């Protein structure tokens, strides 16, 4: 019994040594693939001239939110936000350094001077406006309602007296909570809400419309009957509060890109494969051209 145990220990010990060696090999050979920390150095010199002088811009992006900011199987950062980030760096004439953030630390990353600009599906809200400076928006989102193709719901009036599935804490829940005639069925996570919906526990489900477009593409028995309901919200680049220089430059850049129709191009490359043919670029991007 004791002997068998020793053999097990030796095997696991040998595996551990192999693991360290193998991971060191990959750690030194494909360092660039794990880009995300190289930009995280501190500096308070964030104006446009200083960025140009230092030769790189530090952009905070998501690493796990397809199709906006994510890392593909080749280890490259891609997505709607990342595509825009590359264009911004190109127009500034500097290199790009990504720093990966999650929803909770977008504001801190800016305020602690770890990044120059946040391009991470950052929805403009009055609360956030007090802590960061938002540039002009480059995307719009609003609440959408998805329902089965067999019993589609196309207007808000059709929801009366029916069960509507939402996730707690979302804009969808906020919006429909003000309507007494709709029965809300609330869940804690996206996975739960979609499972409940598929099991027929509600007549429809409400969430951010861009999220629903992507979901419907993989679930063809359902349709986004109401594409947009309630107030429109906008997604904008954000810079540190008081960074006028970069804010003004970004505003000019977005105006220029809008004229060019850049965001249609961005949509077609990054979002369209996720959203499918039913959705038009105009459902997501703002008015393009002139």
């Amino acid at each position, binding site marked *: 019994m004791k002997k068998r145990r020793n053999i097990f*220990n030796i095997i*696991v*010990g040998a*595996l*551990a040594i192999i*693991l*360290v060696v*193998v*991971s*060191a*090999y*990959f*750690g*030194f*050979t*494909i*360092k660039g*693939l*794990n*880009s*995300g*920390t*190289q930009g*995280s*150095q*501190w*500096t308070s010199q964030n104006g446009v001239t200083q960025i140009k002088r230092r030769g790189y811009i530090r952009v905070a992006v998501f*690493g*796990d*939110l*397809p199709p906006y900011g*994510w*890392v*593909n*199987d*080749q*280890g490259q950062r891609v997505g709607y936000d990342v595509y825009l980030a590359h264009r911004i760096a190109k127009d500034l004439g500097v290199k790009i350094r990504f*720093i*990966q*953030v*999650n929803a909770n*630390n977008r504001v*801190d*990353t800016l305020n*602690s*001077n*770890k990044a120059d600009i946040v391009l991470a599906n950052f929805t403009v809200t009055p609360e956030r406006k007090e802590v960061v400076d938002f540039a002009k928006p480059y995307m719009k989102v609003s609440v959408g309602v998805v329902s089965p193709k067999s019993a589609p719901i196309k207007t808000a009036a059709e929801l009366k007296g029916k069960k509507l599935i939402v996730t707690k804490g979302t804009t969808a829940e906020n919006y429909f909570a003000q309507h007494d005639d709709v029965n809300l069925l609330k869940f804690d996570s996206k996975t739960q809400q979609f499972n409940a919906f598929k099991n027929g526990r509600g007549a429809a489900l409400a969430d951010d419309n861009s999220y629903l477009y*992507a979901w419907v593409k*993989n679930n063809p028995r359902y349709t986004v009957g109401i594409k947009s309901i309630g107030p429109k919200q906008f997604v904008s680049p954000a810079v540190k509060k008081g960074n006028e220089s970069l804010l003004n430059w970004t505003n000019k850049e977005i105006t220029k890109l809008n004229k060019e129709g850049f965001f249609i191009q961005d949509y077609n490359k990054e979002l369209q494969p*996720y959203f499918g043919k039913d959705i038009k670029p105009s459902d997501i991007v703002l008015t393009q051209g002139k």
Partner: protein
Amino acid sequence: MAHSGINILFAGNNFGRLMAGLWNSIWIAAVSLVIGLIVGTIFGVLRTSNSKILRLILRLYLEFFRIVPTVVLLYLVYYILPELFHINWSASWMAVLAFAMWVAAEFSDIVRGALQSVPESQREAGLALGLSKVQLFRYVLIPQAFKLELPAMINLATRVIKTTSLLLIISVMEVINVGQQIIEANNQQYPTGVFWVYGFIFILYFVLDYPLSAWAKSITNKQK
């Protein structure tokens, strides 16, 4: 196996990226352990000194790192320190700083305990031989204390390796962070991928930590 999701571990560069992420965890843990153990030994020796003020300061240092959760510590070091002292380090080195300070605190207490449990007769014998204070620690107390503190030291090392999984909150590309990227990138196609990726990461941590833990146990058994 087309739809099981296990293949996402090997699609593209995913395997290499997970390994590179693991390497980040390993070197950060190793460097902070080396720094932390050296500093911790010095602090531990100082904690047996006669100066009340010095002992109090070091005691406060230890209690601070014991009480503050590691997550909060990382947050403080990553977001507040650079602003205050204009430190221009990358996230990985800020992590090393935080971990090294934490290890030093924990280890100083282990060293103190070990030094105090070396029999008093040893210290007296050393003094009787005319050894200076430094010689007494260098040749008599520390070598004997080292044997006593070894199992606790190894257990501390396994804790540090496990705790590197928290580094994702300060944007270090360690193995959990890479794992999440892979899960989300493939979530639409392989919803069960999450099981395989976390299962794989579980095995990686187990393989690293189990031998250390077994080693600590066998040392303890021998000492009995």
